[in-house]
């Protein structure tokens, strides 16, 4: 008799087991991302999943985190993100090393927020942080790295994805100049992406100022055409907001370097993008993929975060949400995994020959019928079934529907299998 699984045997809300082929793909994507990070000179760090609750200050992140008490009755949190833990790590461990510190990570983070809305509580992330440089070139270089990573996984800009870039300091400086009293409220409304509230709050300002308060957050367009920056500059010049103009110059410099990195075509400017976290101080960005309503990555400059940890270092970086990224990656070719059925001693020899040429082989000792072997191969997401024959000849059968088995020398199997596998991460 079937029994209902007791609730405590399920995974906790928002978490899940990840099985092949999804887990295989996740691990492969992580490997590819690590390779790109390393190619750009980043060193990978691991930090504990648990942090003292004081480490995370951002209210949204504190609210979103899982909290527990350690044996000394101190409140600890499961890290809700990696940026702050890395800021802590740099301040504590790298005091005596010369900046900039270029660090990367590939780790899960934990958030209880939105669990009720079907979102994950455990999110796999990969990201980088550059700590100790104020240069706009670093902002451009990290954005270029993000574009490179997404490109190396088979996504093309602008058809498949775009990085939306804003400058927190520009609108903030403009507001401080024209409407210092309402500025905090306007920024709160904009952080919540409520442009109607921004419009309404602008009504209190002079006509000239109101135009900018309403108009700037709606400036969106490709970075490759200068229209957005020109209009933004006009708003700032009309009221003489010199600090805002300086922030705009920073954005121009970032764009110049993005062009040198050949990443400009992937960038959309949005001067209404100010980032969801308070710690962002300059350039902020979010990556979107066509067909997905959520960000696949976000990042930006946070020059004041490390001050809290006693090291006044400027910094910039991004995090990629791997599950979301996975959901938009192009389909892979057939799997290169070969299920080798039985064959006794010859079977073992053939497995060795194939593995030596880089073909992954799952060797079964049981002699299965073709139908059973096919069913098994499908269950492990293999691309091929192989039977050992006499004198070094084998029979290779693709798992895909309607394909005919073929007899060939074992030496040719590797070429056949690797030739058809066109995974994005190979």
């Amino acid at each position, binding site marked *: 008799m079937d029994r209902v699984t007791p609730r405590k045997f399920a995974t906790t809300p928002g978490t899940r087991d990840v099985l092949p082929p999804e887990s295989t793909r996740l691990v492969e994507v992580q490997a590819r991302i690590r390779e790109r990070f390393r190619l750009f000179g980043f060193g990978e760090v691991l930090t504990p999943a648990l942090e003292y609750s004081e480490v995370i200050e951002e209210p949204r992140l504190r609210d979103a985190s899982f909290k527990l008490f350690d044996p000394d009755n101190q409140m600890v949190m499961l890290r809700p993100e990696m940026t702050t833990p890395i800021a802590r790590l740099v301040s504590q461990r790298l005091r005596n090393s010369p900046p900039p510190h270029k660090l990367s990570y590939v780790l899960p983070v934990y958030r209880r927020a939105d669990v009720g809305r079907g979102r994950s509580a455990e999110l796999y992330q990969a990201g980088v942080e550059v700590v100790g440089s104020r240069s706009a070139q670093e902002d451009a270089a990290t954005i270029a790295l993000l574009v490179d990573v997404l490109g190396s996984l088979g996504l093309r800009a602008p058809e498949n994805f775009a990085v939306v870039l804003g400058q927190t300091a520009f609108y903030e400086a403009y507001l401080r100049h024209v409407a210092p009293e309402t500025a905090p409220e306007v920024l709160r409304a904009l952080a919540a992406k*409520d442009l*109607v509230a921004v419009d309404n709050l602008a009504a209190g300002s002079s006509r000239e100022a109101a135009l900018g308060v309403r108009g700037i957050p709606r400036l969106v367009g490709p970075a490759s055409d200068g229209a957005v920056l020109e209009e933004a500059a006009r708003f700032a010049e009309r009221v003489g907001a010199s600090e805002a103009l300086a922030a705009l110059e920073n954005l121009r410099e970032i764009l110049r370097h993005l062009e040198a990195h050949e990443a400009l075509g992937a960038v959309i400017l*949005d001067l209404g993008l100010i980032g969801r976290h308070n710690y962002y101080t300059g350039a902020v960005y*979010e990556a*979107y993929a*066509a067909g997905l*309503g*959520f960000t696949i990555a976000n990042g930006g400059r946070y020059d004041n975060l490390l001050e809290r940890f006693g090291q006044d270092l400027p910094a910039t970086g991004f995090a990629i949400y791997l599950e979301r990224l996975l959901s938009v990656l192009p389909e892979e070719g057939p799997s290169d995994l070969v299920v080798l059925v039985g064959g006794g001693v010859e079977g073992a020899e053939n497995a060795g020959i194939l593995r030596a040429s880089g073909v992954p082989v799952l060797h079964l000792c049981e002699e299965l019928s073709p139908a059973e072997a096919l069913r098994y191969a499908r269950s492990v997401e293999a691309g091929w079934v192989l039977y050992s024959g006499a004198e070094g000849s084998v029979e290779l059968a693709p798992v895909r529907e309607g394909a005919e088995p073929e007899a060939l020398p074992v030496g040719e199997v590797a070429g056949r299998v690797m030739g058809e596998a066109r995974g994005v991460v190979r």
Partner: protein
Amino acid sequence: MRAQDGILRVAVPKGAIFEDALRSLSAAGLPVGVLRENDRRLLYPAEGVEFVICRPTDVPVYVEYGAADIGIVGKDVLEEGQPNVVELMDLGTGWCQMILAAPSERAEGVREAIRHAEVVRVATKYPRTARAYFEGMGRQAEIIALHGSIELAPLVGLADCIVDLTATGTTLRENDLTVLDEISTSTARLIANRGSYRLRNAEVAALAGRMQRDEARIG
């Protein structure tokens, strides 16, 4: 999944603000004629655009997840659900008020109870809005979430008062309920998915620009 490339998907709420939403969309030049055919379809492909018809409370869900690029929905729904979407424009239509009301003969008693920070029982379709309202005043409330006919709750003793939406006040009068406080006003909003707003900005912004604002009714 999302509409085909190039097709903008629009979430349209059925119910009270359906007609107003159609007027706004039609003003923006969208072919809303198909929506008046009144069959029971939920998905209406049209020239260059696709309409999804859903419950008002579901509109922000479709838009947040990117299943629809843009949508029209009342501010009351946005405040209750707090979805992560871009709120682009106040369309000015569908004006209504979120109110606190109690049966007329007990209204004074409820008012006193709230003033003395006693715990009152509140029935509502908008638990988050109701909780925020009472917390904002530093008052205590036991929120009972219901799905419809909120006016019934205080009449049968399920709750002391209600937090609900009213446009004309007719239902309140018919059930002999007195308004104790006006919590907020709401009008229809044009919302957009965060990604669609950026990736298809020219299209979305042009559409918003063509929608007529019913200025007279913006409260």
